[in-house]
């Protein structure tokens, strides 16, 4: 109690100091010189999630799904979201464990305006991808890039329109199906709007970091309740690619699960054109040069692991540079938060968390280990066959003994929020716990309770996934959207 009183006094002092310093005599003025915004978001180049899994209906292929543009409101007119023409979107695969991409797929978009006299997205029902009433269609080019070869796999590939409503898109399903592109070598591609497959209880988490099922265990207890999917009803823009595994492995062959060469490291990036004031040769536009503005592999890294002042640097860096950030994995902030917020939890070690570094940076021995190089990649062991059709895998993946799921790759249905919460609090459960303990982590107990039950109470996506490529659900329609300020200003 002595400490508590002291802390209260300290807080009062800090507060008083802050108030005094804040109450300066300064008055405001409006500005007239030209000022760019200090901080602005760039959602069209903002990579929200990456998924990689062996395709259940075509098990000799890998499907990679990269989503851009967060929290798209379906009723988003008149300026509907779309891919940016001057952003380079890339899906990248490392097949030799050095954290550098060996095979990349580049997506570059072109927006056509069919009728320059109108700002309208469409001037009548869109019944096909080539419909003249579709006023602002997007098409894209896919290029495969390796160290020695650049191959254009497809040009003028059409994207579907956004899902506006029953008048504009009377049969959205047919448009989405028509937008699945068959590329040479058995590759399929899709790029367009989709339901955001991610699910999490935003509403509760915003309310003092609540997890509704664990409400009684919170420092401010409430009655326990079911979770609510805060991402439900929101769309995103998906780039999906399905590629035969042999086109991705280092030696062009399939490998067994216990062979390290079976493991692929996957990540996605977005880059914008590099411009310079003083460029060489008086060239005005260096269209060959790009600056990476966003990268993503494992979920929640940029959000929870990388601190603010390192974000610009991290987003501009490559996975092979991730050793520079390793302390943020081995001393995860979220573990400290969970320990502080949920006194009822069995406090997990806040430092020395090599288990977290292994899961997120090198892969787990016996599952998807790629060697000593620390790099944030989704590591998919292609030798482990799919365990269920898309959407039917165990949401807790490896924690439940379903080795075809996260953190072996990431499937659409994997509940990465719950899995990561449990891992960070050493609540791995009985299947994985002993392995983590045998590796010397979690201070001898990697199956803490009730940590091994942690979760936000949202266990599935709001829409069922499709059983065939691109698997993501069709986007929510603007006409019947259900959002009315659910997210406030966010």
């Amino acid at each position, binding site marked *: 109690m002595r400490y508590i009183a002291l802390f209260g006094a300290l807080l009062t002092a800090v507060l008083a100091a802050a108030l005094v310093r804040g109450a300066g005599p300064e008055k405001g003025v409006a500005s007239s010189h030209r000022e760019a*915004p200090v*901080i602005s978001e760039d959602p069209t180049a903002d990579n929200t999630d990456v998924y990689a899994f062996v395709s259940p209906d075509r098990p000799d292929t890998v499907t990679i799904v990269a989503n851009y543009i967060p929290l798209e409101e379906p009723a988003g007119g008149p300026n509907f979201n779309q891919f940016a023409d001057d952003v380079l979107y890339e899906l990248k695969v490392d097949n030799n464990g050095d954290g550098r991409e060996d095979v990349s797929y580049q997506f570059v978009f072109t927006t056509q305006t069919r009728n320059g006299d109108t700002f309208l997205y469409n001037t009548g029902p869109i019944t096909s991808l080539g419909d003249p009433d579709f006023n602002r269609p997007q098409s894209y080019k896919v290029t495969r890039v390796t160290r020695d070869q650049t191959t254009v796999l497809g040009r003028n590939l059409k994207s579907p329109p956004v899902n506006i409503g029953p008048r504009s898109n009377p049969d959205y399903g047919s448009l989405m199906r028509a937008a699945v592109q068959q590329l040479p070598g058995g590759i399929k591609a899709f790029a367009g709007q989709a339901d955001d497959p991610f699910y999490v209880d935003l509403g509760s988490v915003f309310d003092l970091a609540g997890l509704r099922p664990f409400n009684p265990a919170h420092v401010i207890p409430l009655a326990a309740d079911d979770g609510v999917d805060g991402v439900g009803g929101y769309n995103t823009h998906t780039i999906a690619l399905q590629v035969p595994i042999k086109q991705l492995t280092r030696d062009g062959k399939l490998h067994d699960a216990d062979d390290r060469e079976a493991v692929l490291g996957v990540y996605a990036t977005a880059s914008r054109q590099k411009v*310079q004031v003083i460029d060489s040769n008086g060239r005005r536009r260096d269209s060959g040069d790009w600056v990476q503005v966003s990268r993503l592999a494992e979920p929640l890294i940029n959000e929870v692991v990388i601190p*603010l002042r390192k974000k610009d640097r991290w987003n501009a860096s490559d996975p092979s540079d991730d050793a520079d950030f390793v302390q943020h994995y081995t001393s995860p902030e979220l573990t*400290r938060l969970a320990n502080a917020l949920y006194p009822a939890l069995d406090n997990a070690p806040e430092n020395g968390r090599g288990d977290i570094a292994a899961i997120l940076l090198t892969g787990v021995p016996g599952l998807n280990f790629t060697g000593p190089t620390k790099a944030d990649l989704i590591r998919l062991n292609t030798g482990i066959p799919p365990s269920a059709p898309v959407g039917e895998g165990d949401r807790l993946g490896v924690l439940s003994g379903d080795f075809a799921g996260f953190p072996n790759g990431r499937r659409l249905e994997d509940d990465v929020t719950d899995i990561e919460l449990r891992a960070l609090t050493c609540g791995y459960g009985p299947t994985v716990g002993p392995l983590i303990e045998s590796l010397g982590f979690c201070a001898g107990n990697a199956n803490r309770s009730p940590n091994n039950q942690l979760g936000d109470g949202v266990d599935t996506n709001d829409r069922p996934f499709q059983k065939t490529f691109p698997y993501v659900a069709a986007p929510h329609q603007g006409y019947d959207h259900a959002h009315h300020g659910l997210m406030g200003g966010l």
Partner: protein
Amino acid sequence: MIRRRHLFLAVAGVAATAALLGGVLAGNPAAGPAADVNAASAASTLTQGFSPGDTAAYVAQLERRVAEDPRDAEALTLLGLAYQQRVRETGDPSFYPRSAAALRRSLALAPDDDLALTGLAALAASRHRFRDAGRLARRALAANPYSASALGTLGDAKIETGDYEGAFATFDRMAALKPTVGSYARVSYARELLGRTEGAIEAMKLAVSAAAGSTEPAAWALVELGNLYYNSGRLRPAERAYREALARFRDYHRAQAALARVEAANGRVGEAVALYRRALEAVPLPEYAAGLGETLAAAGRKEEAEEAFELVDVIQRLFEANGARTELETALVDLDRGRKLADALARAREAYAARRSIEAEDVLAWALYRNGRCEEARIHSIGALRLGTRDALKLFHRGMIERCLGHGPAAREAFRAALTISPHFSLRWAPVAKEAVR
């Protein structure tokens, strides 16, 4: 990322509060002082991105966070920055002192936080305290050499104090680190200063694209793009850009005032006056009042024009009372109106001493000319054009100065150059230039 950032940031932001409540109120030993410190430091390392949509709601959310936990340095920093964005959107300068207060409180809690320092630097720049802005931006960069936004503000300060080479290098560093609307717009401005209008337009188009997800920044970049067209005499594309800005952000004062200029150039005085008045109602900026005055004067409505010019004076006095340096801006208005000439020259000299930018040097040249000191004026006019900027008004000033010195051919060359860049460069002076080259 935004989503998850918000999400976990919200977690982090409230974590310190929760821990604190747990520790202080409930007396729970598990959430004692040690846990509080951990939670607080954890919270401070997490952040959320700037809201692309509704800034007012974002501000309200951050204010709640700060009310819940007055020690939440990160929320205070973000709030300080969000208040500045509110000024951009509403023109209401009362957000500035709130921004300053929030940022200073944040710095008191987390000294050397680069984002808070960058916010204060941007605030200093908004008040035209460019040396302070540069100093604060350097402190931010010392704390975080990879801060793109601090580089941007440092470059702005260098531009405004006349260190162009340094500014361009800083902008290049910023753009190489993080291409954003801010970096593209700055590269565009630099190219414009160097007279590379097409390159400036290309970079500003990239800025528009990079801002596509945010309302005011996208509209702002569109207005800047329109200005590049307007200043190079292309009224139709300029008008399209301004109208698109208004479509993205309804009643945006910058777009209204810019569109007013197009309407005035096209002789649609009624539309121009209405637009200027709406912009002025939203945000009383001196340049809007001056534009209104010029439009009315050119239409022969002298009394109304006088009223508008008096409004310029009133606004300027308000600015000065609030601590903004406006010597340069007031001097130019007085010089164009042919009054308080000696005093305007003194103010121009003062401004030029404070910031050796080409803008300040051009006003100084014009002030010297209007006071009949054309030899000295010519030296500074040459200085004002030293970067090769294709700025019709500066070239017009040059022409008047050359004519004053009896350099007929040089004067005509300057007038022709100004009119070639844009025959609409000024309602007041373009006719003078046209008369001179006839």
